[in-house]
């Protein structure tokens, strides 16, 4: 379970997160929607400790992420992250991209790490690209590679930071399909997304961020069917 309590995050004078309280249960899929600059991505970076926080607490399975002495490297193994700009490692083959962390972080022997990597790559439909370098892949394939890379660490949670925003429109579908598959398998997911169709269809809950606060949160039918907050209504009118 991920618990966020009164989370504030400032960049200098700019307060990007202004008191977030949120709990995400095991097996749940939470989508976070909202305008650019509303703090959605920053929240994900605060959850896995890539960004320090200004106030509040983030607990992952009871471990305080930002407490002094927390082993972030160990904690991050429980939290897979997929970035907007996929960030595949250009100097490694597809197989090595996925096998590297299991080998040097989890300490698996090379053969075992490659077996794990191969399984995850087949899982996301890249089983025929193992020896290629990322440069030879499309954006959609690189994003699926990034998903396989995160999954190979066998995380408890997956954080998706606008995983489809940087993709050409015709490539969005294959990545969303992969994310749907993960949700169906019971993976706990927090997805920052601009894909309202995905948020509506796949999520257990949807949170609407507005200026660093959760303006409204609820089941997707309620959020999209009968939104209460005027700000959410305006947002939906613009994006739908």
């Amino acid at each position, binding site marked *: 379970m991920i618990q966020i309590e009164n989370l504030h995050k400032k960049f200098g004078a700019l307060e990007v997160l202004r008191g977030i309280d949120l709990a995400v249960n095991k097996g749940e899929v939470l989508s976070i929607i909202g305008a650019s600059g509303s703090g959605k991505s920053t929240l994900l970076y605060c959850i896995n400790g890539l960004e320090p926080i200004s106030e509040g607490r983030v607990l992952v399975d009871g471990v305080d992420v930002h407490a002094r002495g927390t082993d972030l490297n160990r904690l991050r193994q429980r939290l897979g992250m997929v970035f907007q700009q996929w960030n595949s490692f250009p100097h490694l083959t597809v197989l090595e991209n996925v096998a*590297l962390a299991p080998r*040097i*972080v989890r300490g698996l022997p090379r053969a075992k790490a490659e077996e794990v990597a191969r399984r995850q790559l087949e899982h996301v439909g890249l089983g025929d690209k193992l020896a290629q370098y990322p440069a030879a892949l499309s954006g959609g394939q690189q994003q699926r590679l990034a998903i396989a890379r995160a999954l190979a660490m066998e995380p408890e949670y997956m954080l998706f930071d606008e995983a489809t925003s940087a993709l050409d429109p015709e490539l969005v579908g294959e990545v969303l399909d992969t994310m749907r598959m993960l949700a169906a398998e019971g993976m706990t997911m927090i997805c920052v997304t601009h894909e309202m169709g995905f948020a509506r269809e796949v999520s257990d809950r949807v949170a609407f961020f507005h200026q660093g606060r959760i303006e409204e949160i609820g089941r997707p039918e309620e959020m999209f069917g009968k939104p209460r907050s005027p700000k959410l209504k305006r947002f939906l009118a613009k994006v739908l």
Partner: protein
Amino acid sequence: MNSNFHWRPVLRALPDLIQAAFVTLEVAALSMLIGVVLGLALAMARDFTAPAAAPARWLAVAWVALARNTPALFQLYFFGFGLGAWGINMSPLAIVLAGLSFNNAGYLAETFRGGFRAVPAAQMRAALSLGMTRMQAMTRIVVPQVLRAVWHPLTNQMVWAVLMSSLGMLVGLHELAGETQAQASRTFRIFEYFAVAAVIYYVVVKLLVLGARLMAWRLFRGWSPA
């Protein structure tokens, strides 16, 4: 005065010249090795922001400025005659090594700084997000990409080090230029000796560049920068 060229004495001395070429290579390679290590350190020191690290930062800034903006010959003379005036006497080999390493480090510091900037910060974040330590992310993910970015400037600097080592002649080191000078002044066949030495320099440099290309092909084929 006889203006005909006489090549025979040069050809007889060829084994000596080739032996001296190995001294040249040795000096260049060693000064590069030291230059790479020091250059990396300087590159990092220049980007230190902690107030306590200010002396290191200033040392790095001064080093880079001096190495890049004064003649390499003066740098060599500093280690030879400058330190000599304070009673620190070094062998010709040590003087050339010190001078070239100083010069290489100054240039390479800037090269490395550019190289680190060429790797997107997101690569480090992605590596950390997988649970890698900063050290692992650096050595496994960032440095290989930096190496690619600096490969050509590094090759250039190596070529430059080979050619600059000819300054050794002026402090009494018998590398290729020094040996050529010594032999030429014995026989007065100045042009012939230096023409042959120039060919040897040319071949050495061409071979180095070819070797660097082959290595680059071996190391970097198939992938392109992020």
